[in-house]
């Protein structure tokens, strides 16, 4: 910024001190004030629904609520306790493991589908696009119930599958529940991510394909040399969205225990679920607020790391 001004060669920078008194700078000032007016509605709403709640959560996190003795100021004690809370770290570890496995699989699916739709070799593209996207519109609560029935071993579809194949696999045993949740999440979000990829592919100038065709490139070379590089930017976006989504996992583990016995879902299965239970059955709002803030910090850190890395890689190419 400073550097830019030092070498500024615009007329106003080169103007004589005399001209400084002319209305031009005042006009610029007015213009910046108009700009402020334009962002004011957004700014006010943003402050109201984001900044204020964060500050309030931060404030809450400094207190401890007790059934006997009421609310007391405890400084950063909630944070100290949180960092030593094995249940919290159990949940964090679970969503990280989940992210590492589920997100790549889902994005590969999405990408493959987007490439297929874009290949112009599939009939009924519009219908397919809408159908694949449809699960995203199903509320997570409904889809969890639905998958609960599908994967139930006693009377569900999976039970019949077990009978037919003579296997004895329980999709909701403690070791497999996370995989089943992964399946539900993949089902729900593949279409959403596919749409992002598809939009990026549609933005590729047709001339590139024509040029490739003239050069005699086959379909796979086109994919490798044109389409995949074009997807790089949206890949970063989808990864970030997916990380945020999985770090916030709540609905599925919240509902599953009411459907299946002993699926291994605990009250601290994911950090969000833990925060909810702490605040609403343990009446520990302060501790829950501390947890929410720390989790937000972790999520932001991970998402930004991905974004910075992703953008650097993109510009390297």
């Amino acid at each position, binding site marked *: 910024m400073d550097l830019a001004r030092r070498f500024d060669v615009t007329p106003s920078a080169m103007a004589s001190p005399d001209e400084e008194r002319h209305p031009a700078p005042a006009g610029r000032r007015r213009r910046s004030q108009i700009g402020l007016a334009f962002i004011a509605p957004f700014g006010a709403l943003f402050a109201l629904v984001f900044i204020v709640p964060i500050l309030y959560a931060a404030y809450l996190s400094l207190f401890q609520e007790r059934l006997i003795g009421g609310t007391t100021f405890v400084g950063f004690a909630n944070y100290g306790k949180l960092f030593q809370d094995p249940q919290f770290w159990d949940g964090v570890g679970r969503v990280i493991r989940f992210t590492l496995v589920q997100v790549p699989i889902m994005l590969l699916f999405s990408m493959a589908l987007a490439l297929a739709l874009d290949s112009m070799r599939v009939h009924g593209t519009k219908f397919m696009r809408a159908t694949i996207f449809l699960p995203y519109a199903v509320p997570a609560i409904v889809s969890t119930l639905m998958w609960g029935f599908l994967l139930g071993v006693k009377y569900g579809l999976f039970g019949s599958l077990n009978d037919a194949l003579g296997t004895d696999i329980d999709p909701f045993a403690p070791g497999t529940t996370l995989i089943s949740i992964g399946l539900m999440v993949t089902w729900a979000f593949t279409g959403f991510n596919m749409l992002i990829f598809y939009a990026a592919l549609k933005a590729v100038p047709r001339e590139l394909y024509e040029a490739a065709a003239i050069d005699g490139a086959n379909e796979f070379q086109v994919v490798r040399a044109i389409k995949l590089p074009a997807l790089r930017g949206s890949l970063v976006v989808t990864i*970030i969205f997916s990380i945020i989504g999985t770090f916030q996992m709540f609905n599925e583990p919240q509902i599953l225990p009411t459907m299946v016995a002993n699926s291994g879902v605990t009250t601290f299965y994911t950090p969000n679920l833990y*925060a909810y239970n702490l605040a609403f059955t343990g009446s520990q709002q302060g501790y829950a607020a501390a947890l929410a803030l720390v989790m937000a910090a972790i999520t932001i850190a991970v998402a930004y790391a991905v974004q910075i890395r992703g953008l650097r890689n993109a510009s390297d190419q």
Partner: protein
Amino acid sequence: MRLSQKARLLSAVLVPMVALVACSGGSGGSGGGKAAGSGGGDEQVKLTVWSWDGTVEKAVPGFQAANPNIKVEVVNGGSSQDEYKALDNAIQAGSGVPDLVMFEYFAVPYFAIPGKLADLGEFGVEKFKNDYVPAAWADVTVNGKVYALPSDYGPSAMFYNSATLKKAGIDKAPATWDEYYEAAKKIRALGGDHYIAQDTGDIFFLLSLIWQAGGRPFTVNGNKVHIDFTDEGTTRAVAFWQKMLDEGLINTKITGWSDDWNRTLNDGSLATQTMGGWLTSTLPERAPKAAGDFRVALMPQWKQGDKVGAENGGSSFGIPAAAGHKDAAFKFLEYFAHGGGLSTRVDAGAFVPNTSVLESEAFQGKANKYFGDQKVGAVLAEASETVGSGWQYPPFFEWARSIYGDIASPFYTTGKVKLAEILEQWKQRCIQYGNEQGFQVD
């Protein structure tokens, strides 16, 4: 582009925090305390009642006819847990506090001890004592003061599928737990999915078993809570159920209230349910195909010839200390939980702990079609009046039961359930939490 991306990122991260904050009570507000409103004057009073018991609403027209200056609005706030959260929030916020609220028995101390409930002694509630079965009255009494009036009751009883029992060669309901054990083996011998009962870590069932056996694991005295799962009654109950689980006589795959559960009740493969008497109202809906097969009996006894029961659920209504119209609220409470509105509620299906109802001919003599014309009321009345006395719940039971599954579930899934160890771990968590909450727990 980058900015909007960032904003979206930020918003996605922060939404749960916003939700959390929104729910944890906002600014001061105007305060719910417009002093105790009048109920008898000419002034119009609008009562807000929070209840998930649908029969309470049925009592409203009769009450309003007799008290034209009181308008009653009954709000169903969803499940009990949701309602407690909402009440806590309203009290914390100081606005929107209802005048009358429904509580499960174990939740009464949770609200009474920190002073969130009005002491009903000031309304002369003691004179109603004789109309309630003793155990129910004890449930709403905390440290010698009455904070709520019992409104429905859950005496534990055994519901059994007589057709399944007959198929297994059992011609009468097991009257003792020893007979129950023998019956379990015969039912298991039918093969397939036939079990005498299911258990996937149901704390309320286990506690009712302990309760009946004379165990009193929780002792509450003011802010002091003592937890002991090694007294004689507890040990006996735990050892018995441990034996049932060890010998594979219990289905540990089907959880209560699930779709699977409904199906097994319908097809008769689950032979018995030892549960609160309220099951009478929901069983016909859940197991319509088993109509005519189910019967009700007292809980099997620990000693031949005894008649001791236990509780499994039940609820009451109390008046928040911050309520605006306490007098009018009590008037309505008395009406539907003791006075003229009681019969309306009983007709609508409520199971109440009032002796005036339980001992009436109308209640005891009525044949229930779903239960093969059995006089169900007589059995449940007897179950209510024989509930063992002296049971206490710790004030943080709502939290304690929510984490019980965390501890029990891993044991149940490995198939090697060690009840005593589960209870010991549970106790340790309770001690830690209770002390953090300012109680003296050991």
